[in-house]
């Protein structure tokens, strides 16, 4: 086992090994791996007809609410959770999906994902919780740079593409 093994493994992952050595000073090994290799745990949800992934790190909690629990405070829709007031919004609205946002109000219960958006919490109303899984984060490429509220994409079991929600600035 030598550095050539490291080299071949890293190269098989599209990475790079760099070695800088200086006598009597030491050696610096630099391993560069592509960002596409990033793996994270995510909650898969359905919003309208598409599947989206929300990184678990951004999720505070998930719950279902009764539409009657939604109150309006100074024009902002909120729910009260453990004596804390949390603003809620439709994920579809934040994504500008072409659907009737009011439809969730007619449901018996609405699935809500409470996420950390910036330094506050926001409840996102969605259509359905699907499952939790590990996802490989892939970039949308150089053509679709900086898409609002989308940080990348991942490929799910059946080969379909699921987009990764970027909740940092959502709502």
């Amino acid at each position, binding site marked *: 086992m030598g550095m050539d093994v490291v080299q071949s493994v890293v190269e098989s992952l599209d990475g790079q090994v760099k070695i800088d050595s200086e006598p009597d000073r030491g050696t610096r090994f630099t391993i560069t791996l592509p960002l596409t290799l990033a793996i994270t745990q995510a909650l898969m949800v359905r919003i309208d007809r598409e599947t989206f992934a929300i990184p678990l790190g951004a999720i505070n909690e998930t719950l279902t609410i009764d539409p009657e629990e939604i109150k309006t405070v100074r024009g902002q829709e909120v729910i009260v959770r453990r004596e804390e007031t949390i603003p809620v919004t439709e994920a579809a609205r934040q994504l500008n999906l072409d659907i009737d946002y009011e439809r969730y109000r007619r449901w018996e219960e609405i699935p809500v994902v409470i996420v950390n958006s910036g330094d506050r919490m926001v409840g996102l109303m969605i259509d359905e919780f699907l499952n939790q899984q590990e996802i490989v984060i892939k970039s*949308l490429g150089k053509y679709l740079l900086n*898409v609002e509220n*989308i940080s*990348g994409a991942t*490929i799910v079991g059946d080969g*379909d593409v699921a987009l990764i929600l970027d909740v940092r600035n959502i709502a």
Partner: protein
Amino acid sequence: MAAEIETELDHLHRGEDRNKAREQFVTFQIDSEEYGVMIFRTREIIKPRRITNVPNTDDHVLGVINLRGQIVPVVDLKKKLDLDLEGRADDEEERIITVEVNEALIGIKVDSVNEVVWLEEDGIEPPPEVAGGIKQEYLRGVGRKEGRLLVLIDLESLLFQDEEKELDEDINASEGYK
């Protein structure tokens, strides 16, 4: 000696010119018109597959597809070129041509792919001022082949010019603040 090298170079240059005088294009159909893109930009031609819509993108971006594990955006050329849609082509004939522009792999959806043709450089005319409503800057020119008219698309400006313009505008706007 120097003279010899020069003639040698002359030959090389002329050889290059001979190669440059002909270019290969992939031609495809949108509605009733035939278009062409330079073959060296194209990577492959694939059948349509499920496209995942990407919210908050322009109208002409149909979404992204999974191409052997790579996420590839797909552009609807009809919408991007602002063409009046008249009747849909046979879905069976629809194809996605993947092209590489500015180091980005992009799929362009077309009604059908026709063939690969050689065009003589002097058979390519500069783009007319009005080309069926297509912005002149998106065109490389108009090619003629056996009596057919080929609208040759400049993929770089078609796919990236607007973005650059917006960027310029943004930069100008931010400079205005100073």
